[in-house]
């Protein structure tokens, strides 16, 4: 393993400290318990948004703390949900009296720890609602499984729910918008090279030199199937097909399209992928109203990408376009 770090056990603490030092105008870091809040507190009475989860997915979630998006992010150890204490502490720190929405990616660990944190916050008299993000179509959904994973589509939920909160919606309203976004988002990913978790020093799975892993998660979990490498356009089609069929997305739909790098993918490859996405969607009569291409929800230095589509309506588009000022997403301010 070759990584730029000092001590594998303190990577998260050091990185979060560096993040706080680098962006003092946008975020403030609490070291113990570890969470990230906005440097400028929002207007009082705003519903607060808290998200979090295992680290290693940066800029998610800390990079989305700021005006128009999250109020706090709680980074856990690498690929491991944070414990309830810092989640509860962050929840308490950002509550403005209007309640707090927890945005939780659907993993057993995240769900359980956020549940306990919500109970703790509730005991302090804070109203908490939760929304689960489970956009990964690579995982077959079923009542009898842990359900789908939450992956890059989380960005859509955080951005749009953040705008709704900024607009002045109440807790139920913000939760309803967040749920609507989560319900209309679908994602799927591919890996060309696994990542290496600092504390283990081992690749999260093995891939031969001519193999790719289709349906990859964001924690170095193996994916749905392993196939021989193919031209980019073919691989994109393999991701886009299940996404489009699932909701389904149909002719006349307007979408936000996200081509998300997994951390180690050259920008060039993301744009080669987007070129295909744009072609296929145009061919299906689906209008791409807005596009993001870049590293938004990563898996350390994994090489690969995920595609996410959000089916828009007028209100969601308006909220998408609303100003946002975070480290990783910024427009209109």
């Amino acid at each position, binding site marked *: 393993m070759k990584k730029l770090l000092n001590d594998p056990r303190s990577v998260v603490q050091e990185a979060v400290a560096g993040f706080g030092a680098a962006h003092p105008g946008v975020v403030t870091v609490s070291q113990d318990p570890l969470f990230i809040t906005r440097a400028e507190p929002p207007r009082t009475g705003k519903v607060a948004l808290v998200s979090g989860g*295992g680290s290693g997915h940066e800029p998610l979630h800390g990079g989305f703390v700021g005006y128009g998006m999250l109020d706090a992010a709680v980074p*856990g*150890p*690498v*690929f*491991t*949900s*944070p*414990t*309830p*204490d810092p989640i509860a502490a962050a929840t308490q720190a950002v509550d403005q009296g209007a309640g707090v929405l927890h945005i939780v990616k659907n*993993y*057993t*660990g995240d769900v*359980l*720890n956020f*549940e*306990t944190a919500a109970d703790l916050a509730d005991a302090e008299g804070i109203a908490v609602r939760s929304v689960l993000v489970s956009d990964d179509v*690579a*995982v*077959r959904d079923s009542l*009898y*499984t*842990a359900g789908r*994973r939450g992956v890059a589509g989380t960005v859509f939920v955080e951005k749009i729910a953040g705008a709704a909160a900024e607009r002045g919606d109440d807790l139920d309203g913000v939760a309803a918008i967040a749920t609507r976004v989560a319900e209309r988002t679908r994602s799927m990913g591919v890996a060309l090279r696994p990542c290496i*978790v600092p*504390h*283990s020093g*081992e690749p*999260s*799975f093995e891939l031969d030199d001519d193999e790719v892993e289709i349906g990859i*998660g964001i*924690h*170095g*979990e*193996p994916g*749905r199937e392993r196939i021989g490498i193919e031209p980019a356009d073919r691989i994109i089609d393999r991701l886009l097909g299940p996404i489009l069929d699932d909701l389904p997305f149909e002719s006349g739909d307007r979408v936000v399209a996200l081509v998300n790098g997994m951390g180690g993918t050259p920008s060039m490859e993301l744009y080669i992928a987007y070129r295909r996405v744009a072609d296929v969607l145009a061919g299906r009569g689906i209008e791409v109203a807005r596009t993001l291409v870049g590293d938004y929800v990563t898996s350390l230095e994994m090489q690969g990408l995920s595609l996410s589509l959000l089916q828009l309506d007028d209100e969601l588009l308006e909220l998408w376009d609303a100003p946002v000022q975070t480290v990783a997403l910024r427009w209109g301010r």
Partner: protein
Amino acid sequence: MSGVVLDAAWVREWIRRSAEVIASNRAQLSTLDRAVGDGDHGENMDRGFTAVLAKVEDAPLDATPADLLKLVATTLISTVGGASGPLFGTAYLKASGAVAGAVELDGDAVLAMLSAARDGIVLRGKADAGDKTMVDAWTPAVDAAAALPSGRDPIAVLRAAADAAEAGARATEPLVARKGRASYLGERAVGHRDPGASSSALLLRAAVDAAETG
């Protein structure tokens, strides 16, 4: 009728041995988790039990078994994270509740403790037997312990539980997972042992060893 009982010293020894066995199996547990999950189970458990050990060493000398088990629970909940943190945390919390006030634990008390722990895991995680989770170690463990005649020696109870948990962990290998990260893999999880069931078996074996030497 056996007069053997286990006390707070046993709980302390159990915890020491748990921390030891988790530390020495850290890499192996993470390797199991790499095959079907995200490769951190050993790391998570080791972080938790290292913290538990420190806490328990500072615990008051008159702490009851229930006090100690509760300390394990809250420490695991606040240090492990992931899926296993809340699940094991709840297990120890419920175990603590099952022996509240007791200073000496006979076979029935130990069974009640194990049974409460298992129920706690099922309550939080909603996994059924056969879902390829830690429940597949705990449920056979509790069943085997309960199958012993009443008035049983607590060490025998622990031994039956540990044996069954080990068999249960092995028996997760052919299963398709229906809970936890391994459920994302469908058929590809077949052939791999569940990490949480494996660590559960290690913890129960540590309980036996602690009782036998204690």
